[in-house]
């Protein structure tokens, strides 16, 4: 595949038009998951396990079934027992459908507090909940294991007897209970460490956190009399939901239609099924549509949070700051089923530095918590916290400026990644220099108990399949339909790319999101891929439209199509420049020259532009309470090409604040029996508007030649460096090194007091 030649000047890309779906959102008209209603709809509720680890001995649903107002009750017995089916998701890995099915409703064992055991459909949600509480489940309690190190210890309680721990590219070996291993290496670390003038080794632990999307999970399902299923839901991927439902319920994929409603946040947590199959089977059994809503407590208890970790790392450097060796061991919670973020977590730990000798070991560890799900850049935040604070320590020891140190070691275009292949176009050096030149970096920090910290972060991103349809209306306006749910403004960024390619205005394009019957297959809106990959599908469809329209112009002028020159929405006769149609004019002639024009493209682009960022933060710490106040925050990020700069800023600011919450406050508290104690947003404390200052976003652009306008994904990397940047600033302010997340006031105070005594 050839690289694109990116135009020097862009007309629409880089501007800031208003999103066409915005009006509905500011007026409350936009339909999110729970805003959808059908006549004679029932409401479903789930009975969830109160135990973190137990065997189900029996379930008696008779009292629930007899409760007035109840129309259907289901348990795992009402679902087919599928053989292990794997969905291939390209570079995103594979999904074990048997695990997905078991996660939706427990068959033999429950693996976490909140694991679904049964579901009830009734006239309203209150009745459904009351009836569900009448279902009697006989459990045989088992010991839970709640953190990675306990789970990997000898004699740890084993979650899955049939779990075959393997290692990446090595045969399965039952070396550890509950964990499989991943190894990557480059060069020879023992030689490398011998050459080092300074070696530091540190350990870190980070707690489980949740994506915290404000809208919870909601599904409405209708089993049609003819066995055709329709599902309306808030999701990052309508095709993923469809495929997973088909496999879990053993239905043909074509029998299921999934209609994506507006999505109130996802960040990786709404990429697969939870209550969807329950709603479908309840609908089948009751003969009525069924809506199911997971409330906040259920969402926190029973939907994929993001891994807690244990990390041990070793870095070796020369006195001039050259990194010569790095060893990284990271254990990442997988939750109740294998397949957590260990691969991206370890692969991004060091990738942004050019280190000749690297040894990486990652563990995917089963624990009695919900199956872990991506939270923006999965696995990367804890890894970055470990490495960037160690780099800060090296800088201090060697008395080197933190930017200069990173410049000395920065990965540049063509350098070998630990994954083996050379790094594509990347602007890491430019980012670091931008930090140095910025007023924030050069300003005086001022005041006691204040400090400044820097962290440098990396994330991959992905291509994966996307579909886009373009249809030209006879008045010259254009319909754009893509398969990518719009989490944060991608309707407008796709419409802008279509406008750029076609040579028309974004206001002439009406972008919509299709359901699984109305547009071609699209992978989820994840991995910072939509503006990139769906953008390429849009671009390709636009080229097809232009080619078809050129043929029509050639027909009208009775010339060869080769003689048509297309210039920014105008079609010209090369041999007679007087002859010219605007896009609108030619659109008006389509009916008379053969009929309407439409084009579809399904692209799986491979030229992914990696994401790179640096975060600079000033903070003040209160020595009496341990509370941190963030005073100033500047995030520098490479967007490749910012299609809509305001939205790019928004991604940077939003991801940064999530990272700040991860750094300072957020964690899951489980008691010894494995019950989640903080199941409300009061006690799962996310940043409020008062907790953060303005976040200044500095957008740099090293174009990605894999995209026609140079676009890189931007959505994920902002969450990667805040924790490390804040930890480094705290050291600068108070001389203490934190090695755990979150860095709560209590923990900071403990550390401050232990240092002074």
């Amino acid at each position: 595949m050839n690289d694109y030649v990116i135009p020097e000047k862009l007309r629409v890309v880089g501007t800031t038009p208003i999103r066409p779906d915005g009006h509905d959102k500011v007026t409350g008209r936009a339909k999110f998951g729970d805003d959808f209603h059908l006549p004679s709809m029932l409401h479903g509720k789930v009975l969830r396990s109160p135990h973190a680890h137990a065997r189900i001995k029996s379930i008696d649903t008779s009292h629930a079934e007899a409760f007035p107002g109840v129309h259907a009750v289901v348990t795992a017995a009402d679902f087919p027992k599928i053989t292990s089916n794997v969905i291939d998701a390209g570079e995103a890995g594979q999904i074990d459908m048997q695990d997905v099915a078991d996660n939706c409703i427990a068959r033999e064992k429950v693996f976490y507090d909140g694991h679904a055991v049964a579901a009830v459909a009734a006239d309203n949600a209150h009745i459904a909940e009351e009836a569900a509480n009448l279902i009697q489940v006989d459990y045989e309690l088992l010991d839970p294991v709640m953190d990675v190190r306990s789970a990997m210890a000898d004699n740890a309680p084993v979650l899955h007897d049939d779990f075959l721990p393997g290692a990446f590219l090595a045969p399965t070996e039952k070396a550890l209970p509950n964990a499989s291993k991943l190894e990557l290496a480059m060069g020879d670390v023992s030689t490398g460490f011998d050459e080092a003038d300074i070696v530091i080794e540190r350990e870190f632990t980070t707690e489980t956190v949740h994506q915290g999307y404000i809208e919870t999970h909601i599904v409405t399902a209708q089993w049609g009399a003819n066995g055709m299923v329709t599902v309306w839901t808030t999701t990052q991927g309508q095709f993923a939901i469809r495929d997973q439902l088909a496999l879990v319920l053993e239905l043909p994929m074509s029998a299921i239609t999934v209609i994506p409603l507006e999505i109130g946040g996802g960040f990786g947590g709404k990429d697969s099924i939870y209550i969807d199959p329950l709603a479908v089977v309840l609908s089948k059994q009751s003969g009525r549509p069924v809506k199911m809503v997971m409330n906040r407590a259920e969402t926190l208890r029973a939907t994929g949070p993001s891994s807690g970790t244990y990390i041990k790392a070793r870095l070796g450097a020369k006195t001039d700051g050259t990194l010569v060796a790095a060893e990284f061991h990271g254990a990442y919670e997988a939750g109740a089923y294998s397949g957590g973020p260990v691969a991206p977590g370890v692969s991004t730990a060091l990738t942004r530095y050019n280190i000749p000798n690297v040894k990486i070991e990652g563990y995917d560890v089963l624990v009695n918590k919900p199956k872990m799900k991506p939270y923006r850049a999965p696995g990367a935040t804890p890894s970055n916290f470990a490495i960037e604070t160690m780099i800060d320590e090296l800088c201090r020891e060697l008395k080197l400026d933190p930017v200069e140190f990173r410049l000395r070691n920065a990965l540049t275009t063509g350098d070998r990644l630990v994954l083996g292949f050379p790094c594509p176009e990347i602007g890491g050096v430019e980012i670091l220099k931008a930090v140095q030149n910025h007023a924030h970096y050069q300003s005086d920090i001022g005041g006691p108990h204040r400090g400044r910290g820097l962290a440098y972060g990396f994330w991959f991103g992905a291509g994966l399949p996307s579909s886009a349809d373009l249809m030209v209306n006879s008045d010259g306006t254009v319909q754009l339909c893509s398969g990518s749910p719009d989490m944060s403004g991608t309707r407008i960024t796709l419409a802008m790319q279509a406008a750029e390619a076609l040579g028309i205005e974004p206001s002439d394009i009406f972008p919509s999101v299709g359901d699984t019957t109305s547009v071609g297959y699209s992978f989820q809106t994840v991995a910072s891929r939509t503006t990139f990959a769906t953008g390429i599908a849009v671009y390709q469809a636009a080229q097809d439209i232009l080619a078809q329209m050129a043929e029509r112009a050639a027909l009208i002028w009775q010339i060869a199509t080769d003689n048509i020159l297309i210039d920014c929405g105008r079609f010209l006769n090369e041999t007679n420049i007087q002859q010219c149609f605007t896009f609108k004019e030619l659109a008006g002639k389509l009916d008379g020259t053969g009929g309407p024009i439409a084009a579809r493209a399904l692209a799986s682009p491979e030229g992914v532009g990696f994401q790179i960022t640096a975060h600079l933060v000033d903070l003040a710490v209160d020595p009496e309470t341990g509370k941190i106040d963030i005073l100033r925050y500047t995030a520098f990020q490479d967007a490749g090409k910012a299609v809509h700069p305001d939205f790019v800023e928004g991604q940077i600011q939003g991801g940064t604040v999530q990272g700040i919450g991860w750094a300072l406050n957020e964690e899951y508290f489980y008691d010894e029996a494995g019950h989640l104690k903080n199941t409300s947003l009061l006690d799962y404390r996310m940043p409020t508007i008062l907790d953060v200052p303005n976040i200044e976003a500095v957008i740099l652009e090293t174009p990605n030649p894999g995209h026609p306008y140079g676009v890189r994904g931007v959505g994920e990397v902002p969450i990667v460096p805040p924790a490390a940047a804040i930890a480094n600033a705290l050291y600068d302010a108070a001389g203490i090194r934190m090695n755990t997340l979150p860095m709560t006031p209590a923990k900071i105070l403990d550390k401050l007091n232990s240092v002074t005594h």
Partner: protein
Amino acid sequence: MNKQQVTATINGEHKEFLCEPRQSLLEVLRDELFLTGTKEGCNDGNCGSCNVILDGTLVNACCIFGVEANGGHITTIEGLSNGNELHPLQQTFLEGTGMQCGFCTPGFLIAASALLDENSEPTAEEIRHWLVGNLCRCTGYDKIVKAVQDAALILRERAL
């Protein structure tokens, strides 16, 4: 559970409805009156997605019973604009990209409108203090603060 009859003025319109005593105002607005602009994010007063104005006071509708609204005046997001004419806050949220997924937006708009009714020239600090009960997970809040400041300016200019 016996339903009670409730009468209230909602967005300037006289409404009568039946609700069970256990139903929250949020549930009544969304499920009985189909005013789904007001959202449920947590159902226990911690996120502000369900903000409405009841008798001049900014409240979390999830923490009020439907029957408590009897005889009251309620403004929801559906009542913020004047027909097709957007409130300046709605306009500045649109133009200033003050939202991404848009789910928390109705709550923020109602809360901010209550602020601007009381304080026509709030500082950024005052805006942040006022909106502390509204959670947003997408935007990082930066553009929300700016949108409120911009709307305050528009309203002040109109008043001149």
